[in-house]
């Protein structure tokens, strides 16, 4: 019988190892799996490479993981956000490296990583500083750069409803990178507001099919990052 429910966030993230590449869903606070990230902070894994569009805000969630010194490298498109002070400090002091990737290229690299495509050509970044060091090729009189697929050891994502098989529904624009990260990671760990029995989600409506999901934790009242930041919260 297939049942991907884990007993707790702590249990779900227990095997994340030092040096792992961890894809973290979310665009700003929308879709950020704060409870799973906090469990990862408690768990202690370090020297992580983290893939996320941003670098978190305040001193909670992703920003707290970075602040705890666990992230040696960020792969992201926009590391500057309101209330984002943790990453800039560590970046300037050379303690966290940055691979800056245009947002659409980041998304397509993740999609490719999950779809078994090792590399692809894109017009994005041609003629800009972000093209540096990349192979260029011309198709039909237009220039493109070679980009590589990106996969992860783990993905941490948040959704609204999951069933025991791992079929997922998201909340509005909180979906963002999560479906493709679920595809691209070897182990995908999901925190879901609600977990239901198989059959309760209409197959026509499933956004992420369960094959891409490994572990599910129920987090019925997830914290909202902006609220924590407004309260001046700091984790741990």
């Amino acid at each position: 019988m297939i049942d991907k429910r884990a007993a707790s966030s702590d249990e779900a993230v227990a095997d994340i190892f030092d040096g792992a590449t961890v894809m973290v869903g979310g665009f700003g606070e929308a879709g950020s799996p704060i409870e799973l990230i906090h469990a990862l902070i408690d768990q202690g894994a370090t020297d992580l490479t983290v893939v996320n569009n941003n670098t978190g805000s305040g001193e909670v969630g992703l920003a707290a993981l970075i602040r705890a010194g666990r992230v040696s490298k960020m792969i992201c498109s926009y590391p500057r956000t309101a209330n984002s002070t943790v990453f800039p400090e560590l970046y300037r002091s050379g303690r966290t490296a940055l691979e800056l990737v245009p947002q659409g290229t980041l998304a397509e690299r993740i999609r490719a990583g999950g779809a078994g495509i090792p590399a692809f050509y894109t017009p994005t970044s041609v003629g800009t500083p972000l093209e540096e060091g990349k192979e260029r090729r011309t198709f039909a009189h237009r220039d493109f750069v070679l980009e590589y697929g990106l996969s992860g050891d783990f993905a941490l994502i948040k959704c609204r409803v999951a069933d025991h098989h791992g079929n997922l529904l998201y909340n509005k624009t909180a979906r963002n990178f999560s479906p493709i990260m679920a595809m691209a990671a070897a182990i995908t760990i999901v925190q879901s507001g609600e977990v239901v029995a198989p059959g309760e989600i209409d197959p026509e409506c499933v956004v992420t099919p369960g094959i891409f999901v490994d572990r599910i934790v129920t987090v019925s009242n997830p914290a909202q990052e902006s609220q924590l930041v407004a309260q001046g919260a700091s984790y741990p």
Partner: protein
Amino acid sequence: MTDTTPAIGLTRDEMARRVALDIPDGSYVNLGIGIPERVAAYLPEGREVIYHTENGLLGMGPSPELDEGDPELINAGKRRVTALEGASFFHHADSFAMIRGGHIDLCVLGALQVSQHGDLANWSTGESDAIPAVGGAMDLVAGVRTIYVVAQHCTRAGEPKLVEFCTYPLTGPAVVDRIYSDLAVIDVTSDGFQLVELAPGVDFAYVAQRTGAELLPLRGGSLRGDA
């Protein structure tokens, strides 16, 4: 933010209104952060446009009242928005397939510099201690058919933003079609910057002086286009 009336030329809201006049009925449009965001408020009556925000929504509506809305229903500037009837949500790879695949008709962006060849610089001033951040700008200019820039004609220090060659790092080469500034509407053509329209009370010499490359004068026709 208050919109103080400048001594000469258009206010930021007047610039946004001027851009809105040129958005065709039925278009799929992506609006950048800043003045571009304001364009939606001025769409002329009788036109229907579908707004795309690259974080995963087609059919974006105006921001809700303060403290209302859903923190997980936001735009690319991470501001809370609404979803109109007929809206759809999708993941990032689909969202950028819409952009890169040429499905979005029009994008309105801000600019640090635009060259006479249509090169756009709008993501970095290249300062060594700055945190580089690009977001979706490079994908938008590479993939969207028509790129409009809306920006002040000059920087706060009075430097022209319209230049022969960009000195800031590029977002994309030869991508800008038209510029809407506080002083004028200017097309990027194979001959360079072509004046299309002057803001009320502004003359050609005033704009030309504040443009860092040759500006071709109006080619007959009315001073105010279809405005």
